[in-house]
């Protein structure tokens, strides 16, 4: 419905605006500058700073533009003597308690207060009395505070309650003694907490990791993309002498709006670490030796040809750029190697033929806000995809109901949320119960193993609730998350969820996890598909099959097996037992030195031009912000030179742009949302329903090699020491107590962990908390385990 338009005059200029809009919005739309502190276009109106005073004809006094709705024929003056007088007076009051410490303030040079004071303040302060001093608050490793500078605009408070969904900051005390803080000392726990640094108009809240590192005018601002989740958040990297000093959001209303997650903001710390690979390394009889590019690529070319193509496995990271991923698969396919995969955290590949062109949201990111119901399966969306969760949070504020089928309570900070907690081996049953609610005649297409399970299911209260919710919601979505991806019966679960989505007309979203998971599918970084989703007639092995035995040589691209793989211990073992391992990596770790034969240093996302495809199928390209360290080079260049060494044709690209153009020819810029999972004929239904299963999720700050090295993120409350959680009843049955140490045995491997009780966990399942810096020595994230009591003497 078009909004009613009215006409008004700002500074005698005729402007048109929607009825009900606030004056400041309208002025902003027409580039008429009104000073402000508390007003922020994405937050509610507080009207407490009084800086945006303007003169309105017939009003006896100046009015705050942020809280004055426009009216037909209104005449507004933003720079009249009366308006300026009001603004000047406000400015003088605001500066009474604000310290004049701009020279030592991090915000200096990019400070809204400083700028506004320059424009609207007096040259000399008339105030000679004492200024108040406020004790700084300790808000954790990401946000530093200088609370004396706070002007009480409450943007940070409103950000918490309105955007982050968790109000951690507040204004305590009153009048002269009012302070912004947490009252009891605690770290901020919001995964979006860094945004309070941006909304703060003064230097009260600053970025702790980059505090006192650089002045705003010394840095270069480089547009970039965050590769850590499937949002494709737009960022600016601020660079000082080839170092990324900080990262801030680059506004894009269709994606991240004006925000970014803490992971996007502080991951840059992982770019500049002592373990960066700076020159090619080759293992020789004398041990590790630094080598030239020429020599190391020669070794690689010579050695790799000694293996038959079936003996080589190529595995790459999903956060690598499209250009890298494409050239990697192209090069190794030219050698006849078909064992190529990026799905390192997946456990069940049975239904890969039926997957869509690439896993996706099934809708645009913006339209997430219009959902009336969302069903999340095996998904901790807030930690997996913080910015997508933010969009759903906006929907939930409008009344969207969110239901989650998981194994434990995840607090998504949504307004309405129902958690249906089931042990992972019972998820199949749970989904069958929901699907059973679909009228019988609609279920003909189900593969017969599933049909049997569905027929025997009798829908529980939860199942009926979810089915009815989705059936009646109108616009709704079913999303499958990272935990579902690592589920041993993922194919069956996907098939059931797809059937459910189809019959309830829900958008069906397979959430891609990393910044370019979608790209990896598109460009053929898969054993069974070539670029553009073309079926590979000569399909190779998936990750699990590669690790299971036949491969004698591995090419690891941007991966660390002990952290990135679903089954870390077996991945590490496979590498150690392999005859030849090449790693393309930005970092050299001790464990790499133990299994690799050639280490080739590559550039990170900040150090090269690269394209990334996000969850809605949007292609975005960003230039490099800094140069890679030492001899590290963008991997697409290395691959191109390697092709020469191997004598391959078709690698004449001179720029990453040419690589991108070649990819576009092969794939088209498609948004292939349609998959055929609902008619998936091959599913994995085998599971032991009786035993105890473990469930884990990859910690938020462990998703890729860069984030794992971001020091400040690793100090947040999200980083926890490994432990095992179970419900009280299970603990009683096993005869173990809280804080006891228990032994978990999985697949022949054992580990002793401290026990924690969690009443929300169902029976027959335990939560194994992973840590970003410790290898999960047990194996797959969802798998049967045995729990043993440790007998003390």
């Amino acid at each position, binding site marked *: 419905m078009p909004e009613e338009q009215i006409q008004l005059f700002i500074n005698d200029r005729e402007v048109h605006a929607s009825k009900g809009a606030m004056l400041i919005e309208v002025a902003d739309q027409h580039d008429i500058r009104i000073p402000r502190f508390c007003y922020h276009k994405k937050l509610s109106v507080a009207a407490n700073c009084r800086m945006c005073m303007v003169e309105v004809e017939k009003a006896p006094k100046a009015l705050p533009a942020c809280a004055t709705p426009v009216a037909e024929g209104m005449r507004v003056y933003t720079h009249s003597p009366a308006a300026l007088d009001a603004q000047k007076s406000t400015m003088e009051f605001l500066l009474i308690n604000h310290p004049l410490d701009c020279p030592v303030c991090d915000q200096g040079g990019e400070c809204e207060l400083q700028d506004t004071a320059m424009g609207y303040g007096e040259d000399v302060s008339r105030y000679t009395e004492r200024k108040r001093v406020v004790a700084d608050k300790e808000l954790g490793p990401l946000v530093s505070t200088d609370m004396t500078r706070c002007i009480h605009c409450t943007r940070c408070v409103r950000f918490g309650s309105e955007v982050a969904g968790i109000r*951690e900051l*507040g*204004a*305590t005390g*009153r009048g002269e003694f009012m302070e912004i803080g947490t*009252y009891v000392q605690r770290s901020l726990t919001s995964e979006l907490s860094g945004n309070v640094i941006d909304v703060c108009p003064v230097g009260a809240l600053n970025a702790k990791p980059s505090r006192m590192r650089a002045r705003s005018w010394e840095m270069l601002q480089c547009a970039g993309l965050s590769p850590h989740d499937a949002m494709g958040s737009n960022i600016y990297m601020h660079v000082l002498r080839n170092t990324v000093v900080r990262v801030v959001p680059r506004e894009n209303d269709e994606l991240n709006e004006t925000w970014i997650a803490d992971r996007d903001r502080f991951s840059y710390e992982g770019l500049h670490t002592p373990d960066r690979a700076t020159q090619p390394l080759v293992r020789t009889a004398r041990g590790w030796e630094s080598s030239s590019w020429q020599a190391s690529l020669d070794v690689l070319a010579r050695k790799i040809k000694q293996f038959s193509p079936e003996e080589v496995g190529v595995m790459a990271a999903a956060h690598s750029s499209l250009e890298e991923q494409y050239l990697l698969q192209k090069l190794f396919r030219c050698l006849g190697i078909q064992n190529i995969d990026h799905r390192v955290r997946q456990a069940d590949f049975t239904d890969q033929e039926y997957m869509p062109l690439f896993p996706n949201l099934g809708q645009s990111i913006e339209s997430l806000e219009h959902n009336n119901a969302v069903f999340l399966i095996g998904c901790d969306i807030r930690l997996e995809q913080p910015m997508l969760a933010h969009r759903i949070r906006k929907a939930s504020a409008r009344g969207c109901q969110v239901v989650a089928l998981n194994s434990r309570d995840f607090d998504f900070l949504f307004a309405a949320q129902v958690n249906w907690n089931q042990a992972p081996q019972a998820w199949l049953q749970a989904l069958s119960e929901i699907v059973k609610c679909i009228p019988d005649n609609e279920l003909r297409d189900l593969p017969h193993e599933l049909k049997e399970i569905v027929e025997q299911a009798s829908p529980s209260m939860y199942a009926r609730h979810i089915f009815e919710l989705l059936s009646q919601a109108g616009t709704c979505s079913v999303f499958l998350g990272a935990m579902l991806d690592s589920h041993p019966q993922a194919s069956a679960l996907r098939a059931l969820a797809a059937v459910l989505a189809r019959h309830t007309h829900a958008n069906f979203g397979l959430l891609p996890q990393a910044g370019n998971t979608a790209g990896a599918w598109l460009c053929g970084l898969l054993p069974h598909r070539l670029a553009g989703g073309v079926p590979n007639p000569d399909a190779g092995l998936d990750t699990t099959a590669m690790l299971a035995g036949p491969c004698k040589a591995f090419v690891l691209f941007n991966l660390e097996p002990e952290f990135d793989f679903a089954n870390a211990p077996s991945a590490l073992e496979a590498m150690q037992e392999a005859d030849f391992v090449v790693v393309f990596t930005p970092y050299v770790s001790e464990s790499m030195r133990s299994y690799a034969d050639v280490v080739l240093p590559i550039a990170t996302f900040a150090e090269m031009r690269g394209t990334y495809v996000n969850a809605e199928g949007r292609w975005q390209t960003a230039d490099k912000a800094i140069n890679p360290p030492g001899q590290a080079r963008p991997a697409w260049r290395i691959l191109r030179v390697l092709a020469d060494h191997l004598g391959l044709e078709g690698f004449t690209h001179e720029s990453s742009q040419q690589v991108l153009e070649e990819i576009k020819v092969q794939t088209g810029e498609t948004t292939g949302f349609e998959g055929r999972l609902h008619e998936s004929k091959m599913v994995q239904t085998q599971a032991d329903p009786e035993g105890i299963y473990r469930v884990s999720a990859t910690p938020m700050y462990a998703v890729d090699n860069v984030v794992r090295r971001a020091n400040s993120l690793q100090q947040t409350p999200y980083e926890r020491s490994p432990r095992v959680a179970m419900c009280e009843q299970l603990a009683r049955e096993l005869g173990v107590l809280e804080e006891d140490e228990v032994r978990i045995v999985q697949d022949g491997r054992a580990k002793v962990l401290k026990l924690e009780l969690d009443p929300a966990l169902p029976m027959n399942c335990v939560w194994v908390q992973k840590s970003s810096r410790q290898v999960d020595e047990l194996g797959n994230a969802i798998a049967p385990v045995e729990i043993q009591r440790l007998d003390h003497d």
Partner: protein
Amino acid sequence: MTPADLPGTLSNYVRGEMDDWLSRYPVDQKQSAVLGALRALQHEDGYLKTEKMDAVATYLDMPPIAVYEVASFYSMFELEPVGKHTLAVCTNLSCMLCGADKIVEHLEHKLGIGLGESTPDGKFFLKKEEECLAACCGAPMMQVNHDYEENLTIEKVDRILEGLD
């Protein structure tokens, strides 16, 4: 935490007060009962303990910080432990004209503490800068715990103190 976890933290008295206040407001505006809840807490403990404020926050479905904001806004709420009996002498205009300053001076001298302090034996707390309590016709006055004592003289103050155990 669910309301079921509360009994350990909050007494039946406090929960009863909260339920009483809750019954007077729409169900979706539970935070309306926060002042009543905090008053009950203070009545019971003499000051507001953070754990109990957290329990109130859970019960009323508020972020804990929102409860702290209310608690710290009103000067009538104490956030630190204070003496058993609160003596709040009004020092606003009418009382001042009628000699409130002398009363304060006497109390400070007799109890050996300044405004805003508690006696070492934990018996008395002398509240700082109490503003008008709307009993100007009985000035000078002070509030002793929940009671108003008006038309104060030095002798009357002494008698009142003796009457407190």
